[in-house]
């Protein structure tokens, strides 16, 4: 779960990492008092996607009137398709230096990785490798003061600035561990009037650890209704742009199914890994999600491993009778109890395929026909 900048900064503040004076607004009318006290100010759209600055999502103002006007503009903005609903207004800093610091996970080293660069303020992908400081963190001892001091020094800091930066880096690591974070990023970490502070902040939390999130973790939902529903069912669902609805069992095979659809000239409407759940109720709800996205045709691709083909067939037959499915459905069914499953489908007049290639070619053709209607 990605947190909005202002939420990340709330956590920073709680953890003792200095952030600019700021407040959150959803209405232009309410900004007067804050801006009076802190002008000049920066007005920052709260969205989760990157490239907010380039999209015009950050503005500046010197007076309350000016600020209210800018807030109105921002609240009318859409960034990558999503409307801006919240604005963080902060004192505008006199920035002397911009640094980059992040803690993320290194899959290869199987542990936390600290990234830092003296070239802050730009997207980290644009920082050349020789300007990027990397340090793996051994979780058995954690990030230690000497390591944080070493990073601060290699960022070109010394004296009080180095001390403050090292302290912030240590606190970032504490947040990373205490909040089950996948990413804690400060970009830029700025030096302003001798003080080191987080001018921006990104925190991404691990969805799998939600059961132990600290009480102060907010809930952020920037998903479509269908994605929310799939999430509740424990199903992996990602919405795409095409018109062939896809349900498969297993992340790898679902991805491969999408690839095969593309290969044969089709265009998938979604990624749906329905996992091993072959129960009638689960099947019905998953199909409802698929259908609500208005695809032209559906492909169900099941390789029965743990999932038994006869169970899948039974569930589908039952659901088919209760749901009013108006589009063609192609089923590919192989694996455990394949013969029984295929027989059950056939009893109810439903064909199925053994080869994924044939099934995909069929569904692509059917979707094409659907598009012509």
């Amino acid at each position: 779960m990605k947190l909005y900048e202002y939420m990340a900064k709330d956590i920073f503040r709680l953890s003792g990492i200095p952030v600019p004076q700021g407040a959150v607004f959803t209405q232009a009318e309410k900004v007067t008092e804050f801006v009076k006290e802190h002008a000049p100010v920066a007005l920052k759209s709260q969205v989760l996607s990157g490239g907010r600055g380039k999209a015009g999502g950050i503005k500046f103002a010197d007076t309350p009137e000016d600020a209210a006007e800018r807030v109105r503009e921002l609240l009318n903005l859409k960034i990558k398709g999503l409307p801006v609903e919240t604005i963080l207004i902060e004192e505008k800093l006199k920035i002397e230096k911009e640094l980059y610091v992040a803690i993320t996970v290194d899959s290869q080293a199987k542990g936390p990785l600290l990234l830092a660069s003296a070239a802050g303020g730009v997207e980290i992908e644009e920082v050349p490798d020789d300007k990027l400081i990397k340090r793996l963190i051994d979780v058995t001892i954690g990030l230690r003061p000497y390591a944080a001091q070493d990073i601060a020094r290699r960022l070109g800091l010394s004296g009080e600035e180095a001390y403050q930066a090292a302290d912030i880096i240590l606190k970032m690591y504490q947040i990373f561990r205490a909040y089950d974070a996948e990413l804690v990023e400060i970009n830029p970490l700025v030096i302003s009037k001798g003080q080191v502070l987080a001018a921006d902040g990104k925190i991404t939390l691990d969805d799998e650890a939600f059961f132990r999130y600290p009480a102060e973790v907010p809930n952020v939902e920037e998903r479509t209704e269908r994605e929310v529903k799939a999430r509740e069912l424990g199903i992996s669902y990602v919405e795409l742009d095409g018109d062939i609805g896809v349900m498969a069992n297993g992340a790898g095979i679902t991805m491969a199914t999408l690839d095969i659809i593309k290969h044969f000239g089709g265009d998938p409407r979604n990624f749906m890994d329905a996992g091993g759940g072959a129960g009638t109720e689960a099947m019905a709800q998953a199909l409802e999600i698929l259908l609500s996205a208005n695809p032209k045709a559906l492909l169900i691709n099941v390789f029965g491993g743990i999932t038994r083909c006869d169970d899948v067939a039974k569930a589908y037959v039952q659901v088919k009778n209760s749901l009013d499915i108006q589009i063609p459905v192609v089923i590919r069914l192989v694996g455990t109890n394949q013969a029984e499953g295929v027989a059950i489908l056939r009893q109810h007049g439903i064909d199925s395929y053994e080869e994924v290639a044939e099934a995909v070619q069929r569904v692509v053709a059917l979707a094409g026909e659907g598009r012509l209607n």
Partner: protein
Amino acid sequence: MAIILNEHTHILVQGITGNQGQFHTAQMLAYGSKITAGVSPGKGGQEVQGVPVYHSVAEAVTHERIDASVIFIPARFVKDAAYEAMEAGIKTLVIITEHVPLHDAIDIMAFARKEGVEIVGPNTFGVISPGKSKIGIMPNSIFLPGQVGVVARSGTLSYEIVSHLSKAGIGQSTVVGLGGDRIVGYSFVDILKKFEADPETQAVVLVGEIGGNAEETAADYIKGMSKPVVAFLAGKSAPPGKRMGHAGAIIERGKGTFQSKVEALTDAGAKVAALPWEVSQLLSEIMGS
């Protein structure tokens, strides 16, 4: 021979009295796996499919020989179960459970390194050495003993590929699921090394997917391998920034793209199949059968 697992491997099942544990214990026994004990706190003294159940791993290892443990435990308790097995001295763990918190996986791997433990998973279908033994949740029917090693990040996709191999008469030495999470124990390279050293294995199939740089790192190792490698990669059509089911299957910040992986593997001399069923064709060509 085979890697990781053979007919002599004595297996413990942690969480043996749960639904998953019971079902797959029966499946593994049916395949011929040597399951010597199960653990379920508070249920010591019971039996599951004739396998004795102990309260704790410590108790189990004092009564039975155990070489490897397979974990069927709810995600939030997996860290504790893994620690318990490692503290009891077990040196191979297969963690089937999905949705293990990232930081728990990090902690498990750190302790495993300290204790010299090898870990398959989490979020894996396990390991099977066809005809000898299996430790995991893969279907019993699709595998065929033979000379091709298979290593995959994901389960059903590798079943798809393996069943094509078996139908084509191409048997497998061992099939290993690394697991779909961002942090897993064995990496492609770990397994490739084992296949390279295994006299029974003649060629290797690598089933990868978008996200991370595991395939790129594997490619570096493949350059120096004596055995041929055929790869298939899922996620060619996946959009960036979206997690495709697996926690690890996400193109982030321009890293982990399909193209990057195909290029790396091709440059390393591996054949990359465009479609799953082409893997067996490429293998047949290479192996001249």
